[in-house]
Protein backbone atom coordinates (compact mmCIF):
# COMPACT_ATOMS: atom_id res chain seq x y z
CA UNK A 1 0.00 0.00 0.00
CA UNK A 2 1.49 3.32 -1.07
CA UNK A 3 1.33 6.40 1.15
CA UNK A 4 2.11 10.01 0.66
CA UNK A 5 5.01 11.28 2.79
CA UNK A 6 5.38 15.03 3.23
CA UNK A 7 9.02 16.13 3.29
CA UNK A 8 10.10 19.22 5.24
CA UNK A 9 12.23 21.88 3.58
CA UNK A 10 15.65 20.80 4.92
CA UNK A 11 15.23 17.25 3.64
CA UNK A 12 14.00 18.14 0.15
CA UNK A 13 17.50 18.17 -1.37
CA UNK A 14 17.46 14.40 -0.73
CA UNK A 15 14.15 13.86 -2.52
CA UNK A 16 14.95 15.80 -5.65
CA UNK A 17 13.37 18.93 -4.12
CA UNK A 18 9.99 17.23 -3.99
CA UNK A 19 7.86 18.25 -1.01
CA UNK A 20 6.02 14.93 -1.09
CA UNK A 21 7.00 11.42 -2.17
CA UNK A 22 5.23 8.08 -2.26
CA UNK A 23 6.40 5.14 -0.17
CA UNK A 24 5.00 1.67 0.50
CA UNK A 25 4.23 -0.04 3.79
CA UNK A 26 1.56 -1.26 6.18
CA UNK A 27 2.97 0.56 9.20
CA UNK A 28 4.78 3.86 9.73
CA UNK A 29 8.01 1.97 10.28
CA UNK A 30 7.65 0.13 6.98
CA UNK A 31 6.98 3.35 5.09
CA UNK A 32 10.03 5.07 6.62
CA UNK A 33 12.21 2.04 5.78
CA UNK A 34 11.06 2.08 2.18
CA UNK A 35 11.53 5.89 2.07
CA UNK A 36 15.12 5.72 3.34
CA UNK A 37 16.03 2.86 1.08
CA UNK A 38 14.88 4.90 -1.90
CA UNK A 39 16.45 8.15 -0.66
CA UNK A 40 19.49 6.91 1.24
CA UNK A 41 20.77 10.26 2.48
CA UNK A 42 17.63 10.78 4.56
CA UNK A 43 18.61 7.97 6.87
CA UNK A 44 21.37 9.65 8.84
CA UNK A 45 19.25 12.72 9.43
CA UNK A 46 16.19 10.80 10.58
CA UNK A 47 17.87 8.03 12.53
CA UNK A 48 20.60 8.16 15.14
CA UNK A 49 23.55 5.79 15.40
CA UNK A 50 21.42 3.57 17.64
CA UNK A 51 18.99 3.02 14.76
CA UNK A 52 16.20 4.91 16.50
CA UNK A 53 14.38 7.95 15.19
CA UNK A 54 16.16 11.07 16.40
CA UNK A 55 14.16 12.78 19.13
CA UNK A 56 13.86 16.02 17.19
CA UNK A 57 12.25 14.18 14.30
CA UNK A 58 8.49 14.13 14.67
CA UNK A 59 6.43 11.76 12.56
CA UNK A 60 2.77 12.51 12.12
CA UNK A 61 0.04 10.33 10.65
CA UNK A 62 -2.39 12.92 9.38
CA UNK A 63 -2.55 15.20 12.43
CA UNK A 64 -1.40 12.79 15.11
CA UNK A 65 2.09 12.43 16.50
CA UNK A 66 2.98 8.72 16.35
CA UNK A 67 4.40 9.01 19.88
CA UNK A 68 0.79 9.11 21.03
CA UNK A 69 -0.25 6.31 18.68
CA UNK A 70 1.76 3.14 18.45
CA UNK A 71 4.97 4.78 17.42
CA UNK A 72 6.59 3.15 14.39
CA UNK A 73 4.26 0.16 14.70
CA UNK A 74 1.30 2.44 13.97
CA UNK A 75 -0.78 0.76 11.27
CA UNK A 76 -1.78 2.77 8.22
CA UNK A 77 -5.11 2.97 6.44
CA UNK A 78 -5.45 3.80 2.76
CA UNK A 79 -5.19 7.56 2.25
CA UNK A 80 -3.24 8.23 5.46
CA UNK A 81 -0.67 10.96 4.93
CA UNK A 82 2.63 10.81 6.79
CA UNK A 83 4.48 14.00 7.65
CA UNK A 84 8.03 14.42 8.81
CA UNK A 85 8.00 17.53 11.00
CA UNK A 86 11.20 18.89 12.52
CA UNK A 87 11.64 20.19 16.01
CA UNK A 88 14.42 22.70 16.12
CA UNK A 89 16.45 22.91 19.26
CA UNK A 90 19.82 23.87 20.58
CA UNK A 91 21.29 26.43 22.86
CA UNK A 92 24.36 27.95 24.34
CA UNK A 93 26.96 25.78 26.01
CA UNK A 94 26.06 25.21 29.65
CA UNK A 95 28.97 26.58 31.59
CA UNK A 96 28.50 30.12 32.82
CA UNK A 97 26.21 29.90 35.84
CA UNK A 98 27.63 28.12 38.86
CA UNK A 99 24.89 25.51 38.64
CA UNK A 100 26.87 22.36 38.46
CA UNK A 101 28.20 21.21 41.78
CA UNK A 102 31.69 20.72 40.38
CA UNK A 103 32.13 24.45 39.84
CA UNK A 104 31.00 25.49 43.30
CA UNK A 105 33.68 26.40 45.81
CA UNK A 106 34.45 23.82 48.47
CA UNK A 107 33.86 24.46 52.16
CA UNK A 108 36.71 24.43 54.67
CA UNK A 109 36.39 22.49 57.93
CA UNK A 110 35.92 25.78 59.77
CA UNK A 111 33.11 26.69 57.43
CA UNK A 112 31.47 23.31 57.88
CA UNK A 113 31.48 23.91 61.61
CA UNK A 114 30.29 27.49 61.27
CA UNK A 115 27.35 26.64 59.01
CA UNK A 116 26.43 23.32 60.60
CA UNK A 117 22.86 24.47 61.33
CA UNK A 118 22.45 25.18 57.63
CA UNK A 119 24.12 21.99 56.53
CA UNK A 120 21.69 19.76 58.42
CA UNK A 121 18.76 21.40 56.64
CA UNK A 122 18.10 19.22 53.59
CA UNK A 123 16.89 22.32 51.73
CA UNK A 124 20.32 23.94 52.14
CA UNK A 125 22.82 21.15 52.75
CA UNK A 126 26.39 21.15 51.59
CA UNK A 127 25.54 22.09 48.03
CA UNK A 128 23.32 24.97 49.11
CA UNK A 129 25.99 26.32 51.41
CA UNK A 130 28.47 26.17 48.54
CA UNK A 131 25.98 28.08 46.40
CA UNK A 132 25.86 30.77 49.07
CA UNK A 133 29.65 30.86 49.10
CA UNK A 134 29.65 31.31 45.33
CA UNK A 135 26.85 33.90 45.61
CA UNK A 136 27.36 37.59 44.84
CA UNK A 137 24.81 40.04 46.18
CA UNK A 138 24.73 43.81 45.75
CA UNK A 139 23.11 45.76 48.55
CA UNK A 140 21.99 49.17 47.31
CA UNK A 141 22.23 51.34 50.40
CA UNK A 142 23.75 50.65 53.82
CA UNK A 143 20.85 52.17 55.73
CA UNK A 144 17.76 50.86 57.45
CA UNK A 145 17.06 47.98 55.06
CA UNK A 146 20.65 47.33 54.02
CA UNK A 147 21.82 46.95 57.63
CA UNK A 148 19.89 43.84 58.70
CA UNK A 149 20.07 42.38 55.19
CA UNK A 150 23.86 42.71 54.99
CA UNK A 151 24.37 41.38 58.52
CA UNK A 152 22.27 38.28 57.92
CA UNK A 153 23.76 37.63 54.50
CA UNK A 154 27.25 37.90 55.99
CA UNK A 155 26.26 35.58 58.82
CA UNK A 156 24.68 33.10 56.40
CA UNK A 157 27.95 32.54 54.56
CA UNK A 158 27.47 34.63 51.44
CA UNK A 159 30.71 34.80 49.42
CA UNK A 160 30.64 38.33 48.03
CA UNK A 161 28.65 41.33 49.19
CA UNK A 162 28.80 44.61 47.30
CA UNK A 163 27.52 47.69 49.09
CA UNK A 164 26.81 51.00 47.45
CA UNK A 165 26.33 54.12 49.57
CA UNK A 166 27.86 57.59 49.74
CA UNK A 167 26.51 58.79 53.06
CA UNK A 168 28.10 59.27 56.45
CA UNK A 169 26.71 57.93 59.70
CA UNK A 170 24.47 60.44 61.47
CA UNK A 171 23.19 60.11 65.03
CA UNK A 172 19.63 59.97 63.72
CA UNK A 173 20.52 56.79 61.72
CA UNK A 174 21.32 54.70 64.75
CA UNK A 175 17.69 54.15 65.75
CA UNK A 176 17.40 51.61 62.91
CA UNK A 177 20.65 51.25 60.92
CA UNK A 178 22.16 48.51 63.04
CA UNK A 179 25.28 48.16 60.91
CA UNK A 180 26.56 51.33 62.55
CA UNK A 181 27.39 52.17 66.16
CA UNK A 182 27.66 55.32 68.21
CA UNK A 183 31.42 55.41 67.64
CA UNK A 184 30.80 55.50 63.90
CA UNK A 185 28.99 58.85 63.87
CA UNK A 186 30.63 60.99 61.21
CA UNK A 187 32.37 58.02 59.50
CA UNK A 188 31.48 56.86 56.03
CA UNK A 189 28.75 54.25 56.15
CA UNK A 190 30.81 51.96 53.92
CA UNK A 191 33.81 51.99 56.26
CA UNK A 192 31.56 51.35 59.21
CA UNK A 193 29.71 48.56 57.37
CA UNK A 194 32.93 46.89 56.30
CA UNK A 195 34.25 46.81 59.87
CA UNK A 196 31.06 45.39 61.26
CA UNK A 197 30.57 42.77 58.55
CA UNK A 198 34.20 41.62 58.57
CA UNK A 199 34.06 41.25 62.34
CA UNK A 200 30.99 39.06 61.95
CA UNK A 201 32.40 36.99 59.09
CA UNK A 202 36.05 37.50 58.09
CA UNK A 203 35.63 35.25 55.05
CA UNK A 204 33.10 37.60 53.46
CA UNK A 205 34.43 39.49 50.47
CA UNK A 206 33.06 43.03 50.88
CA UNK A 207 33.18 45.31 47.87
CA UNK A 208 32.43 48.97 48.53
CA UNK A 209 31.12 51.48 46.03
CA UNK A 210 31.33 54.93 47.59
CA UNK A 211 29.25 56.69 44.99
CA UNK A 212 25.69 57.55 44.13
CA UNK A 213 24.02 54.96 41.90
CA UNK A 214 23.35 56.60 38.54
CA UNK A 215 22.19 55.63 35.07
CA UNK A 216 25.83 55.79 34.01
CA UNK A 217 27.30 53.35 36.53
CA UNK A 218 24.36 51.06 37.42
CA UNK A 219 24.71 48.45 34.65
CA UNK A 220 28.45 48.19 35.11
CA UNK A 221 28.14 47.71 38.87
CA UNK A 222 25.14 45.34 38.74
CA UNK A 223 26.67 43.13 36.08
CA UNK A 224 28.94 41.33 38.56
CA UNK A 225 26.15 40.26 40.91
CA UNK A 226 23.61 37.45 41.07
CA UNK A 227 20.96 39.26 43.12
CA UNK A 228 20.37 42.97 43.72
CA UNK A 229 18.93 43.89 47.11
CA UNK A 230 17.14 47.23 46.88
CA UNK A 231 17.47 49.15 50.11
CA UNK A 232 16.97 52.59 48.62
CA UNK A 233 14.95 55.34 50.21
CA UNK A 234 13.84 57.33 47.18
CA UNK A 235 11.79 56.77 44.07
CA UNK A 236 14.25 57.76 41.39
CA UNK A 237 16.86 55.26 42.61
CA UNK A 238 14.17 52.62 43.06
CA UNK A 239 13.11 52.93 39.41
CA UNK A 240 16.76 52.97 38.37
CA UNK A 241 17.44 49.75 40.32
CA UNK A 242 14.34 48.12 38.83
CA UNK A 243 15.11 49.01 35.24
CA UNK A 244 18.76 48.00 35.51
CA UNK A 245 17.70 44.65 37.01
CA UNK A 246 15.21 44.02 34.18
CA UNK A 247 17.71 45.00 31.50
CA UNK A 248 20.39 42.70 32.93
CA UNK A 249 18.01 39.92 33.97
CA UNK A 250 19.03 40.14 37.64
CA UNK A 251 16.47 39.42 40.34
CA UNK A 252 15.63 42.39 42.56
CA UNK A 253 14.92 41.62 46.22
CA UNK A 254 12.82 44.68 46.93
CA UNK A 255 11.77 46.29 50.18
CA UNK A 256 10.47 49.65 51.26
CA UNK A 257 9.40 51.17 54.53
CA UNK A 258 7.49 54.17 55.83
CA UNK A 259 6.30 54.99 59.35
CA UNK A 260 4.86 51.62 60.48
CA UNK A 261 4.36 49.98 57.11
CA UNK A 262 6.63 47.94 54.94
CA UNK A 263 6.51 46.14 51.60
CA UNK A 264 8.61 43.40 50.11
CA UNK A 265 8.65 41.45 46.88
CA UNK A 266 10.98 39.91 44.31
CA UNK A 267 11.01 41.67 40.97
CA UNK A 268 12.59 41.29 37.56
CA UNK A 269 12.83 37.52 37.46
CA UNK A 270 12.14 35.84 34.15
CA UNK A 271 8.41 35.95 33.48
CA UNK A 272 7.73 37.64 36.82
CA UNK A 273 6.57 41.21 37.35
CA UNK A 274 8.85 44.17 37.93
CA UNK A 275 8.44 47.24 40.13
CA UNK A 276 6.99 49.13 37.18
CA UNK A 277 4.27 46.51 36.66
CA UNK A 278 3.17 47.41 40.18
CA UNK A 279 3.80 51.15 40.04
CA UNK A 280 4.07 52.28 36.40
CA UNK A 281 4.39 55.95 37.28
CA UNK A 282 6.31 57.58 40.08
CA UNK A 283 4.30 59.67 42.52
CA UNK A 284 4.33 63.43 41.93
CA UNK A 285 7.47 64.88 43.50
CA UNK A 286 7.00 65.95 47.10
CA UNK A 287 3.74 64.08 47.56
CA UNK A 288 5.24 61.16 49.42
CA UNK A 289 7.23 62.29 52.44
CA UNK A 290 10.59 60.67 53.04
CA UNK A 291 11.36 58.78 56.23
CA UNK A 292 13.23 61.89 57.40
CA UNK A 293 10.00 63.85 57.08
CA UNK A 294 7.44 61.22 57.94
CA UNK A 295 9.32 59.09 60.41
CA UNK A 296 9.83 55.36 60.58
CA UNK A 297 9.63 52.83 63.37
CA UNK A 298 13.22 51.74 63.89
CA UNK A 299 12.52 48.03 64.05
CA UNK A 300 10.41 48.08 60.86
CA UNK A 301 13.39 47.95 58.44
CA UNK A 302 14.68 45.12 60.62
CA UNK A 303 11.67 43.04 59.61
CA UNK A 304 11.59 44.07 55.96
CA UNK A 305 15.38 43.95 55.42
CA UNK A 306 15.44 40.48 56.95
CA UNK A 307 12.68 39.38 54.58
CA UNK A 308 14.77 40.72 51.69
CA UNK A 309 17.76 38.73 52.94
CA UNK A 310 15.56 35.61 53.20
CA UNK A 311 14.38 36.01 49.62
CA UNK A 312 17.95 36.62 48.45
CA UNK A 313 19.15 33.43 50.10
CA UNK A 314 16.34 31.40 48.49
CA UNK A 315 17.13 32.92 45.10
CA UNK A 316 20.75 31.86 45.51
CA UNK A 317 19.76 28.39 46.69
CA UNK A 318 17.27 28.07 43.85
CA UNK A 319 14.59 26.69 46.15
CA UNK A 320 11.58 27.49 48.27
CA UNK A 321 8.70 29.79 47.33
CA UNK A 322 9.87 33.33 46.85
CA UNK A 323 7.82 36.52 46.69
CA UNK A 324 7.88 36.48 42.89
CA UNK A 325 4.40 37.60 41.83
CA UNK A 326 3.44 38.54 45.39
CA UNK A 327 3.68 41.84 47.23
CA UNK A 328 3.95 41.32 50.96
CA UNK A 329 2.50 44.16 53.03
CA UNK A 330 3.43 44.47 56.68
CA UNK A 331 1.67 46.72 59.18
CA UNK A 332 3.81 46.86 62.31
CA UNK A 333 1.39 49.02 64.29
CA UNK A 334 -1.43 46.49 64.01
CA UNK A 335 0.93 43.55 63.49
CA UNK A 336 -0.64 42.27 60.33
CA UNK A 337 0.81 40.70 57.17
CA UNK A 338 -1.16 40.82 53.94
CA UNK A 339 -0.36 39.74 50.41
CA UNK A 340 -1.26 41.10 47.01
CA UNK A 341 -0.95 39.00 43.87
CA UNK A 342 1.12 40.64 41.17
CA UNK A 343 1.31 39.78 37.53
CA UNK A 344 3.75 40.85 34.88
CA UNK A 345 2.12 43.59 32.82
CA UNK A 346 2.44 42.64 29.16
CA UNK A 347 2.36 46.38 28.39
CA UNK A 348 5.06 47.23 30.95
CA UNK A 349 7.49 49.67 29.30
CA UNK A 350 10.47 47.75 30.74
CA UNK A 351 9.58 44.07 31.12
CA UNK A 352 6.48 43.89 28.87
CA UNK A 353 6.20 42.08 25.58
CA UNK A 354 7.19 45.20 23.65
CA UNK A 355 9.45 47.16 25.94
CA UNK A 356 10.06 50.81 25.12
CA UNK A 357 12.67 51.37 27.83
CA UNK A 358 15.72 49.38 26.76
CA UNK A 359 18.40 51.47 28.35
CA UNK A 360 18.63 53.46 31.52
CA UNK A 361 17.04 56.90 31.44
CA UNK A 362 17.26 60.07 33.56
CA UNK A 363 15.40 58.90 36.66
CA UNK A 364 15.38 62.24 38.44
CA UNK A 365 13.62 63.65 35.42
CA UNK A 366 11.31 60.61 35.24
CA UNK A 367 10.35 61.22 38.86
CA UNK A 368 9.86 64.93 38.23
CA UNK A 369 12.82 66.03 40.29
CA UNK A 370 14.41 69.16 38.86
CA UNK A 371 18.19 69.20 38.66
CA UNK A 372 19.73 71.01 41.64
CA UNK A 373 20.97 74.09 39.78
CA UNK A 374 17.46 75.12 38.69
CA UNK A 375 16.20 74.71 42.22
CA UNK A 376 18.87 77.08 43.45
CA UNK A 377 18.17 79.64 40.76
CA UNK A 378 14.45 80.01 41.35
CA UNK A 379 12.51 79.44 44.55
CA UNK A 380 10.41 76.28 44.24
CA UNK A 381 7.25 76.87 42.23
CA UNK A 382 7.52 80.60 42.67
CA UNK A 383 7.08 80.29 46.44
CA UNK A 384 8.86 83.19 48.12
CA UNK A 385 11.44 82.24 50.69
CA UNK A 386 13.25 83.80 53.63
CA UNK A 387 16.35 82.45 55.31
CA UNK A 388 16.47 81.49 58.97
CA UNK A 389 18.83 84.47 59.55
CA UNK A 390 16.19 86.81 58.08
CA UNK A 391 13.58 85.20 60.27
CA UNK A 392 15.79 85.64 63.32
CA UNK A 393 16.46 89.29 62.45
CA UNK A 394 12.76 89.98 62.04
CA UNK A 395 11.87 88.26 65.30
CA UNK A 396 14.57 89.97 67.36
CA UNK A 397 13.84 93.43 65.88
CA UNK A 398 10.20 93.02 66.78
CA UNK A 399 9.00 93.29 63.17
CA UNK A 400 5.33 92.37 62.69
CA UNK A 401 5.63 88.67 61.86
CA UNK A 402 3.15 85.80 62.18
CA UNK A 403 5.23 82.61 62.33
CA UNK A 404 3.22 79.56 61.32
CA UNK A 405 4.59 76.09 62.11
CA UNK A 406 2.92 73.44 59.91
CA UNK A 407 4.55 70.37 61.48
CA UNK A 408 2.74 67.74 63.55
CA UNK A 409 2.12 68.24 67.30
CA UNK A 410 4.66 65.55 68.28
CA UNK A 411 7.33 67.39 66.31
CA UNK A 412 6.32 70.67 67.93
CA UNK A 413 6.93 69.03 71.30
CA UNK A 414 10.48 68.13 70.35
CA UNK A 415 11.58 71.58 69.31
CA UNK A 416 9.89 74.84 68.38
CA UNK A 417 10.82 78.36 67.39
CA UNK A 418 9.60 80.76 70.08
CA UNK A 419 6.46 82.66 69.16
CA UNK A 420 5.31 80.22 66.46
CA UNK A 421 1.73 79.04 66.02
CA UNK A 422 1.16 75.35 65.27
CA UNK A 423 -1.30 74.38 62.56
CA UNK A 424 -0.35 71.06 60.90
CA UNK A 425 -0.19 71.11 57.11
CA UNK A 426 -3.26 68.88 56.82
CA UNK A 427 -5.38 71.49 58.59
CA UNK A 428 -4.08 74.61 56.85
CA UNK A 429 -6.69 74.42 54.08
CA UNK A 430 -9.62 74.26 56.48
CA UNK A 431 -8.24 76.86 58.88
CA UNK A 432 -7.39 79.57 56.35
CA UNK A 433 -9.73 82.12 57.90
CA UNK A 434 -8.33 81.46 61.34
CA UNK A 435 -4.85 82.13 59.99
CA UNK A 436 -6.01 85.30 58.23
CA UNK A 437 -7.53 86.60 61.46
CA UNK A 438 -4.62 85.59 63.67
CA UNK A 439 -2.04 87.13 61.33
CA UNK A 440 -3.98 90.39 61.46
CA UNK A 441 -2.04 91.95 58.64
CA UNK A 442 1.38 90.86 59.86
CA UNK A 443 3.83 89.23 57.47
CA UNK A 444 3.18 85.46 57.43
CA UNK A 445 6.25 83.24 57.53
CA UNK A 446 5.74 79.45 57.40
CA UNK A 447 8.15 76.75 58.51
CA UNK A 448 8.28 72.98 58.97
CA UNK A 449 11.14 70.56 59.60
CA UNK A 450 13.07 70.99 56.35
CA UNK A 451 11.01 73.32 54.17
CA UNK A 452 8.96 71.13 51.88
CA UNK A 453 5.71 70.91 53.86
CA UNK A 454 5.83 74.65 54.55
CA UNK A 455 6.26 75.33 50.82
CA UNK A 456 3.00 73.43 50.24
CA UNK A 457 1.32 75.43 53.01
CA UNK A 458 2.46 78.70 51.41
CA UNK A 459 0.88 77.52 48.17
CA UNK A 460 -2.39 76.65 49.94
CA UNK A 461 -2.48 80.10 51.52
CA UNK A 462 -1.67 81.75 48.20
CA UNK A 463 -4.56 79.86 46.56
CA UNK A 464 -6.77 81.44 49.21
CA UNK A 465 -5.46 84.93 48.55
CA UNK A 466 -3.05 85.09 51.46
CA UNK A 467 0.56 86.07 50.83
CA UNK A 468 3.12 84.14 52.85
CA UNK A 469 6.79 83.23 52.68
CA UNK A 470 8.53 79.91 53.25
CA UNK A 471 11.32 79.60 55.80
CA UNK A 472 14.07 77.90 53.84
CA UNK A 473 15.52 74.76 55.46
CA UNK A 474 12.91 74.70 58.23
CA UNK A 475 13.64 74.24 61.89
CA UNK A 476 16.69 72.09 61.10
CA UNK A 477 18.33 75.14 59.48
CA UNK A 478 17.22 77.20 62.47
CA UNK A 479 18.99 74.80 64.84
CA UNK A 480 22.11 74.77 62.68
CA UNK A 481 22.41 78.48 62.10
CA UNK A 482 20.50 80.29 64.84
CA UNK A 483 19.87 78.26 67.96
CA UNK A 484 22.10 75.17 68.39
CA UNK A 485 20.69 74.63 71.87
CA UNK A 486 17.55 73.10 70.34
CA UNK A 487 17.59 69.35 69.58
CA UNK A 488 17.73 68.14 66.00
CA UNK A 489 15.53 65.23 65.10
Amino acid at each position, binding site marked *: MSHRVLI*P*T*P*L*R*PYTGQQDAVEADGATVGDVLTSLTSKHG*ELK*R*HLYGDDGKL*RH*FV*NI*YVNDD*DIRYLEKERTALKPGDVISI*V*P*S*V*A*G*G*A*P*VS*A*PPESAAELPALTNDEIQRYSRHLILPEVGLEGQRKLKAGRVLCVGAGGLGSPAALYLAAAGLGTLGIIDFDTVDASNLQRQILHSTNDIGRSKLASARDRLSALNPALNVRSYETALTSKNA*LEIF*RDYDVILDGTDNFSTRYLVNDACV*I*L*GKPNAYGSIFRFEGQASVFAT*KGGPCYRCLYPEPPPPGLVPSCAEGGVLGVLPGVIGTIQATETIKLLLGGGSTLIGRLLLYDAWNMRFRELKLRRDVDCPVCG*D*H*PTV*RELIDYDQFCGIAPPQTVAATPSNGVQEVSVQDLNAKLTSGAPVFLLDVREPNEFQIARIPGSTLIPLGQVGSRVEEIRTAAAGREILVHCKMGSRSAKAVQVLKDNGIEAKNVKGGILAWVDQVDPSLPKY
Partner: protein
Amino acid sequence: MTTGVGNRVTTITAAALEAIRAHGVQTFPDECCGALIEIGGVIAEAFALPNTTTSGAARRFQIGPRDYRASEARATELRGTLAGFYHSHPNHPARPSQHDLDQAWPNFSYVIISVNAAVPGDITCWHLKDDRSAFEQGELLCPTES
Protein backbone atom coordinates in the same frame (compact mmCIF):
# COMPACT_ATOMS: atom_id res chain seq x y z
CA MET B 1 27.79 44.03 7.10
CA THR B 2 29.66 40.79 6.56
CA THR B 3 30.55 38.21 9.15
CA GLY B 4 32.54 35.07 8.81
CA VAL B 5 34.39 33.57 5.94
CA GLY B 6 33.17 30.54 4.16
CA ASN B 7 32.07 29.24 0.85
CA ARG B 8 28.37 29.56 1.51
CA VAL B 9 26.98 33.08 1.51
CA THR B 10 23.64 33.89 3.08
CA THR B 11 22.18 37.26 2.29
CA ILE B 12 19.88 38.94 4.78
CA THR B 13 18.00 42.23 4.84
CA ALA B 14 18.79 44.90 7.42
CA ALA B 15 15.22 44.67 8.70
CA ALA B 16 15.53 40.96 9.38
CA LEU B 17 18.87 41.47 11.13
CA GLU B 18 17.40 44.21 13.26
CA ALA B 19 14.44 41.99 14.19
CA ILE B 20 16.83 39.25 15.34
CA ARG B 21 18.75 41.74 17.48
CA ALA B 22 15.58 43.16 19.02
CA HIS B 23 14.24 39.68 19.76
CA GLY B 24 17.50 38.67 21.41
CA VAL B 25 17.40 41.71 23.64
CA GLN B 26 13.74 41.26 24.44
CA THR B 27 14.07 37.71 25.72
CA PHE B 28 17.43 38.25 27.43
CA PRO B 29 18.59 36.55 29.65
CA ASP B 30 16.70 33.75 27.96
CA GLU B 31 17.33 32.46 24.48
CA CYS B 32 15.11 33.69 21.67
CA CYS B 33 14.37 31.72 18.55
CA GLY B 34 12.60 32.12 15.26
CA ALA B 35 12.42 31.11 11.63
CA LEU B 36 14.27 32.66 8.71
CA ILE B 37 12.16 33.20 5.62
CA GLU B 38 13.96 33.58 2.31
CA ILE B 39 12.31 35.46 -0.51
CA GLY B 40 14.07 35.69 -3.86
CA GLY B 41 17.38 34.45 -2.47
CA VAL B 42 17.47 36.86 0.46
CA ILE B 43 16.41 36.22 4.04
CA ALA B 44 13.74 38.86 4.27
CA GLU B 45 11.98 37.99 7.47
CA ALA B 46 12.95 36.82 10.93
CA PHE B 47 9.75 35.18 12.13
CA ALA B 48 9.81 35.21 15.93
CA LEU B 49 8.68 32.00 17.62
CA PRO B 50 8.10 31.14 21.26
CA ASN B 51 10.88 29.27 23.01
CA THR B 52 9.06 26.18 24.28
CA THR B 53 11.98 24.47 25.94
CA THR B 54 11.30 22.90 29.30
CA SER B 55 14.92 22.58 30.30
CA GLY B 56 15.83 26.18 31.11
CA ALA B 57 15.38 28.90 28.52
CA ALA B 58 18.57 30.64 29.64
CA ARG B 59 20.61 27.92 27.95
CA ARG B 60 18.20 26.11 25.63
CA PHE B 61 15.69 26.76 22.94
CA GLN B 62 13.14 24.54 21.34
CA ILE B 63 10.78 25.06 18.45
CA GLY B 64 8.13 22.39 18.51
CA PRO B 65 6.48 20.73 15.51
CA ARG B 66 3.50 23.06 15.66
CA ASP B 67 5.67 26.14 15.39
CA TYR B 68 7.78 24.45 12.76
CA ARG B 69 4.63 23.97 10.70
CA ALA B 70 3.71 27.60 11.35
CA SER B 71 7.12 28.55 9.96
CA GLU B 72 6.56 26.55 6.78
CA ALA B 73 3.13 28.14 6.49
CA ARG B 74 4.62 31.59 6.94
CA ALA B 75 7.14 30.87 4.19
CA THR B 76 4.36 29.75 1.87
CA GLU B 77 2.31 32.81 2.71
CA LEU B 78 5.24 35.04 1.80
CA ARG B 79 5.86 33.07 -1.41
CA GLY B 80 9.23 32.25 0.01
CA THR B 81 11.03 29.29 1.50
CA LEU B 82 12.03 28.35 4.99
CA ALA B 83 15.78 28.96 5.00
CA GLY B 84 16.55 28.05 8.59
CA PHE B 85 16.30 29.27 12.13
CA TYR B 86 17.94 31.76 14.41
CA HIS B 87 18.49 31.71 18.14
CA SER B 88 20.41 33.71 20.70
CA HIS B 89 23.26 32.80 23.02
CA PRO B 90 22.81 35.02 26.08
CA ASN B 91 26.21 35.91 27.55
CA HIS B 92 27.90 33.41 25.24
CA PRO B 93 29.72 33.75 21.96
CA ALA B 94 27.85 33.34 18.69
CA ARG B 95 29.26 29.88 18.04
CA PRO B 96 27.22 26.69 17.84
CA SER B 97 27.29 24.41 20.86
CA GLN B 98 27.43 20.63 20.87
CA HIS B 99 23.77 20.79 21.70
CA ASP B 100 23.12 22.82 18.56
CA LEU B 101 25.06 20.26 16.52
CA ASP B 102 23.28 17.24 18.00
CA GLN B 103 19.91 18.57 16.94
CA ALA B 104 20.76 20.27 13.70
CA TRP B 105 18.97 19.78 10.41
CA PRO B 106 20.83 19.72 7.13
CA ASN B 107 20.48 22.39 4.46
CA PHE B 108 19.27 25.01 6.91
CA SER B 109 21.02 28.22 7.80
CA TYR B 110 21.52 28.50 11.54
CA VAL B 111 21.93 32.11 12.55
CA ILE B 112 23.23 32.69 16.07
CA ILE B 113 23.29 36.05 17.83
CA SER B 114 25.35 36.65 20.94
CA VAL B 115 23.60 38.89 23.45
CA ASN B 116 25.80 40.10 26.26
CA ALA B 117 24.14 41.81 29.21
CA ALA B 118 21.12 42.62 27.03
CA VAL B 119 23.29 44.23 24.35
CA PRO B 120 23.18 42.52 20.95
CA GLY B 121 26.60 41.38 19.77
CA ASP B 122 28.00 39.24 16.94
CA ILE B 123 25.71 37.50 14.51
CA THR B 124 27.02 34.45 12.71
CA CYS B 125 25.64 31.90 10.27
CA TRP B 126 26.29 28.16 10.24
CA HIS B 127 25.43 25.08 8.17
CA LEU B 128 25.49 21.46 9.19
CA LYS B 129 27.98 19.37 7.23
CA ASP B 130 26.26 16.63 5.34
CA ASP B 131 27.87 13.89 7.43
CA ARG B 132 26.55 15.65 10.57
CA SER B 133 30.09 15.79 11.96
CA ALA B 134 30.30 19.55 12.44
CA PHE B 135 29.00 22.96 11.55
CA GLU B 136 30.66 25.01 8.85
CA GLN B 137 30.64 28.74 9.22
CA GLY B 138 29.10 30.58 6.33
CA GLU B 139 29.17 34.20 5.43
CA LEU B 140 26.25 36.38 6.46
CA LEU B 141 25.91 39.30 4.13
CA CYS B 142 23.72 42.32 4.65
CA PRO B 143 24.20 44.61 1.68
CA THR B 144 22.52 47.67 3.21
CA GLU B 145 24.26 47.54 6.58
CA SER B 146 27.83 48.77 6.62
